């Protein structure tokens, strides 16, 4: 099936939230560290993972180290050379076309303070039924993160539905989209900071982007990703309303995740469109 409006708006929201937190909140930390072999995800590719995910891939974030090279036995290697196929910032992984397990792989990268994911899981599953693994505080780990791990602090973006309402003669509708951001933080300070930033998204435009410079695996292959440099599609939706609900009262029920500080940020997004 072709990409539909709802697909576009949710993926664009992910990009917007990611960029806004990184740029306005400087929500990242620069690190240097090693990569470790993990289960290969793709045929004919060898995958190596950092102890962290997600890395910053956005060139528009000031002072963030966007990883574009991997050090193989201390030698800086560009993507496309020495069997280095790509760097997957979202997963904190590098992909080689040959086995590199006898070599020492390392890199310089910025790790996001809040990972961003799209999800369909119910809120209670995210809050209570999933044991979240925290991103480590330092890079001296002995293994890479499993490919399916979703460490926190994190923001899970969920589509909560919406509706079309007639707006103008000629078939113009106001498409209302509701999105919920489930914010999971490791401290109350970070939770407040994230909620404060997200609250400020009210009346922000949400540019629709569909053309990203990553390959099918989501990897950087030499083309830079710069959020502010992307050319959006026509007709930017508007974030009309932002409501924050802090989960301060659920401490008693925090069975699996006693150290998770959580909040819901609900967004009402309005788009005028003919369809």
């Amino acid at each position, binding site marked *: 099936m072709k990409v539909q409006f709802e697909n576009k708006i949710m993926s664009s929201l992910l990009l917007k939230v990611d960029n806004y937190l990184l740029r306005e909140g400087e929500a990242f930390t620069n690190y240097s560290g090693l990569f470790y072999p993990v289960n290969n995800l793709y045929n004919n590719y060898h995958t190596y993972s950092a102890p962290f995910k997600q890395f910053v891939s956005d060139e528009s974030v000031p002072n963030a180290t966007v990883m574009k090279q991997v050090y193989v036995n201390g030698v800086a290697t560009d993507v496309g050379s020495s069997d280095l196929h790509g760097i997957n910032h979202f997963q904190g992984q590098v992909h080689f076309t040959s086995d590199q397990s006898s070599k020492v792989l390392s890199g310089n990268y910025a790790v996001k303070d809040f990972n961003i994911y799209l999800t369909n899981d*119910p*809120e*209670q599953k995210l809050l209570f039924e999933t044991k979240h693994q925290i991103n480590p505080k330092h890079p001296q780990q002995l293994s890479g993160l499993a490919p399916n791990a979703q460490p926190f602090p994190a923001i899970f973006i969920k589509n909560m539905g919406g509706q079309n309402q007639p707006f103008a003669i000629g078939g113009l509708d106001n498409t209302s989209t509701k999105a919920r951001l489930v914010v999971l933080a490791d401290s109350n300070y970070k939770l407040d900071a994230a909620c404060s930033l997200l609250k400020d998204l009210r009346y922000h435009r949400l540019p629709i982007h569909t053309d990203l410079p990553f390959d099918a695996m989501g990897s950087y292959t030499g083309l830079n990703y710069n959020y502010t440099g992307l050319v959006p599609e026509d007709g930017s939706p508007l974030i009309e309303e932002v409501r*924050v*609900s802090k989960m301060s009262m659920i401490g008693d029920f925090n069975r699996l995740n006693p150290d998770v500080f959580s909040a819901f940020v*609900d967004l009402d997004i309005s788009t005028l469109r003919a369809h």
Partner: protein
Amino acid sequence: MAGRINMVSIKQKALASQKVIRSAEIEAKARFNRAKAGLLQDFLNDVVTNEIRGGNKTSNSSGTLGGYGNLFSYIGFYEGFDPIAPIEDYLRNFIFNARVINRSGNLTVLVKWPTINTIRALSSMPWEEGNSWVEGIEGGISGFSNYMYDLARGSGRSGAAVQKKSETGVVSTFSTKKYLPTMLKESYKRFK
């Protein structure tokens, strides 16, 4: 002896008289009271209002949950709490407040009307205080509050709650319904 009658001046003077202003206020107040009574009646007689007022033992007469459970426990209200009361008080005690403006030969009566912003503040959801259950009836309510209600009652994922499996294994979901926000808009239109 012929003379000219300045109708504009007469109209301006008439509209500026206290008697005319008072009459306009009385007419506006009568309309306001009718509209307010209608709004209050619509709200109190609505199937959603009655279901919520029925507490956690009532059935899902509004049909918003596919007939399972009830809105009171789905939204997660605490037992004994009457979520309708603050809104009813607000609407019932909303006083007539008007300002008459005489501008270039036209008399305009500006009347304050209950606002959705105040109702939003009076209808916070117990487990998601940023969201309003009144708006949620029209826009959608996730099952999270229901889950929390169950958890707080110590009854696991079902109990009196709604998000349980039917005999056919289908999990009931929330269907939106026109409610107070629409009533407010419609009553405002009628009042105008």
